[in-house]
């Protein structure tokens, strides 16, 4: 009898130590570790109800919040999933004004202009760091966000927001290689395939500087966040070398090209790649490691309804809501209770929730210094402008000006001639 108790205590201690180690790992870096065999949350979620008292706080006051989010980035009631915004409006009587942006920089510019005020925004990791640095965010009041307890500890206290003071993760994902098995014989496991001349003209590359350089830097074995000019130049050289092999620099056009077998290999966000409608498509996260990114919910400093915003953040983390929302988005969730609610197929997807080994290799973007950002932009312009583009940009304006000058002289001469005839007549 005693022995069993002892054994139980020992097991408990082990577990506690493990948890502590886990927690410690998060402080050290960003561990997204998941123990898939021992899911912490089980239970009857069908009987789950919302806390009416908590959500009723602003009822009947005509309250509203302004929510600024990426496009197509919240479940809107299609595919029999929850319509998050209208469900929240019904529950709380808070009107949600919903608008969309397409890039972090756009969000930043709108906030900086000061002429638009939002209550809830969802920037990505590096942009959050920048916004914190520039005092653009309000600290979250966790007393108003009880559902933060469901968060995977590995996502709390990230290096873009130490102590999770300003942000709560919304969704996370990685950058992966996407390839068509009918066109690529081998099974790629390295970024190197993007430089393989066998696939010249069949490679699609990111059309934004940070992601493209991220791929090159990871292939070279450097950090994604390097500010060393030599390493950045080396990556730029590598990208220039790759350019003749690249069919196109694309973002979401990738979907169509990969679906129609127009390209063999592409890079994109793994969760989005899973939605490609083509049975021959395979997705792999390269051994050199990759970029993992987190989009997190924040409240900007100009928010007018902070309590409403926090209620919305809390609602987004209701396990039932979060699980359906993440299924719609197609990325990974940091909400452990919601994770437990997902279908096993989704939970065990090696692309959505990669092994710890891969994640340990991966890095998140941090906000680069202004000088590094400037250099990156310059180098990216160099990459994009190399080869024939120089010719086109050199010749086109010259040709236009020449055409105008010649046309005008000709016209003038013609009118002058006609004038002379008329005089003679």
């Amino acid at each position, binding site marked *: 009898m005693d022995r069993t108790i002892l054994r139980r205590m020992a097991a408990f201690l082990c577990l506690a130590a493990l948890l502590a180690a886990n927690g410690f790992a998060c402080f050290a870096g960003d561990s997204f570790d998941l123990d898939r065999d021992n899911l912490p949350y089980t239970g009857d979620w069908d009987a789950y109800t919302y806390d009416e008292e908590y959500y009723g706080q602003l009822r009947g006051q005509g309250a509203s919040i302004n929510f600024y989010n990426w496009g197509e980035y919240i479940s809107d009631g299609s595919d029999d999933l929850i319509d998050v915004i209208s469900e929240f409006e019904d529950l709380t009587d808070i009107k949600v004004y919903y608008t969309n942006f397409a890039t972090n920089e756009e969000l930043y510019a709108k906030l900086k202009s000061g*002429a638009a005020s939002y209550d809830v925004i969802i920037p990505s990791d590096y942009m959050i760091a920048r916004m914190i640095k520039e005092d653009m965010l309000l600290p979250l009041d966790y007393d108003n966000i009880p559902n933060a307890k469901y968060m995977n500890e590995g996502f709390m206290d990230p290096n873009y927001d130490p102590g999770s003071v300003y942000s709560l993760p919304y969704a996370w994902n990685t950058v992966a290689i996407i390839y068509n098995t009918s066109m690529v014989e081998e099974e790629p496991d390295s970024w190197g395939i993007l430089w393989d001349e066998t696939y010249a003209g069949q490679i699609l590359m990111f059309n934004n500087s940070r992601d493209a350089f991220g791929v090159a830097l990871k292939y070279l074995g450097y950090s994604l966040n390097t500010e060393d000019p030599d390493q950045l130049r080396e990556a730029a050289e590598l990208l220039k070398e790759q350019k003749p092999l690249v069919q196109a620099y694309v973002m979401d056009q990738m979907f169509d090209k990969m679906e129609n077998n127009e390209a063999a290999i592409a890079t994109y966000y793994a969760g*989005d790649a899973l939605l490609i409608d083509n049975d021959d498509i395979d997705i792999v996260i390269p051994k050199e490691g990759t970029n993992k990114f987190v989009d997190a919910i924040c409240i900007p400093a100009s928010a007018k309804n902070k309590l409403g915003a926090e209620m919305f953040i809390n609602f987004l983390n209701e396990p039932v809501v979060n699980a359906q929302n993440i299924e719609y988005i197609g990325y990974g969730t940091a909400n452990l209770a919601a994770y437990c609610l997902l279908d096993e197929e989704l939970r065990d997807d090696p692309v959505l929730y990669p092994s710890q080994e891969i994640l340990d290799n991966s890095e998140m973007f941090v906000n680069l210094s202004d000088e590094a950002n400037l250099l990156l932009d310059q180098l990216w312009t160099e990459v994009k402008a190399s080869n024939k583009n120089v010719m086109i940009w050199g010749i086109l304006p010259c040709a236009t000006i020449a055409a105008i000058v010649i046309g005008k002289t000709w016209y003038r001469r013609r009118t002058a001639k006609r004038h002379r005839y008329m005089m003679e007549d």
Partner: protein
Amino acid sequence: MTKKQNSLTSNLYIFIVMAFMYLPILVMIAYSFNNSKSRGAWSGFTTKWYADLIQNESILSALLNTLIVAVISSVIATLLGTAAAVGIQAMKKRSRDLIMNFTYLPVMSPEIVMGVSLMLLFVMFKVDFSLFTVIVAHITFNVPYVILSVLPKLRQMDKYLFEAALDLGCTPLQAFTKVMLPEIMPGIITGFLIAFTFSLDDFNISYFVSGERAQTLPVLIYSMTRKRVSPEINALSAIIFVVVLAVLILTNLNDIRRENQLQKGGRRG
């Protein structure tokens, strides 16, 4: 080349031009019935995107905003632009040339320049972005187009008509509404339609000045590019195309009918 061959080549030419213009729209309409989200692979017929569209509040409210902005801004721009054109026509040559250069400037400069400068202007005067700022911005870039389409009509008009109306006892206002306005009406309508269409599909300027509560359809569609543009947009575009087509056909039929009546009436007279 014989005449027959000639008409064959010209028919072929017209066919190619039409194909260039309408094939993309037809493909888009076809894919609005595609079962998967793909814009490339066909995987069966469905009308689910149309059903989803009717329930998608964010797309519908963006559409409504776009229509509100287009109607209000093009009506106001037409009023302002017509008045401006009448004024410009009455000016002396030098000041007219000066004003016309200022009118051409926004038309010639890239839209993004307009967008950024309007944004800075609103920020400077501490006007918060909203549907109001979008409407003001759209009026601003629409006025020159109205002026440019009304002015030629004014130039064509016999300038003594107005004076004759005054001589015959019209007040200046009556002379304007009864004589001048009917003369320049085609120009005003063209200007209004141009302003309306430009406002409908403007992205650059709306992108910079839209606020936290309302966005227009082009801004919404652009924001979808990180994930994927939803096929509901195909469905919406298909509906818009069919509606515009129907309106055009109806007006054309109406014109033909009226012309026939006029001809008959003319013969009788």
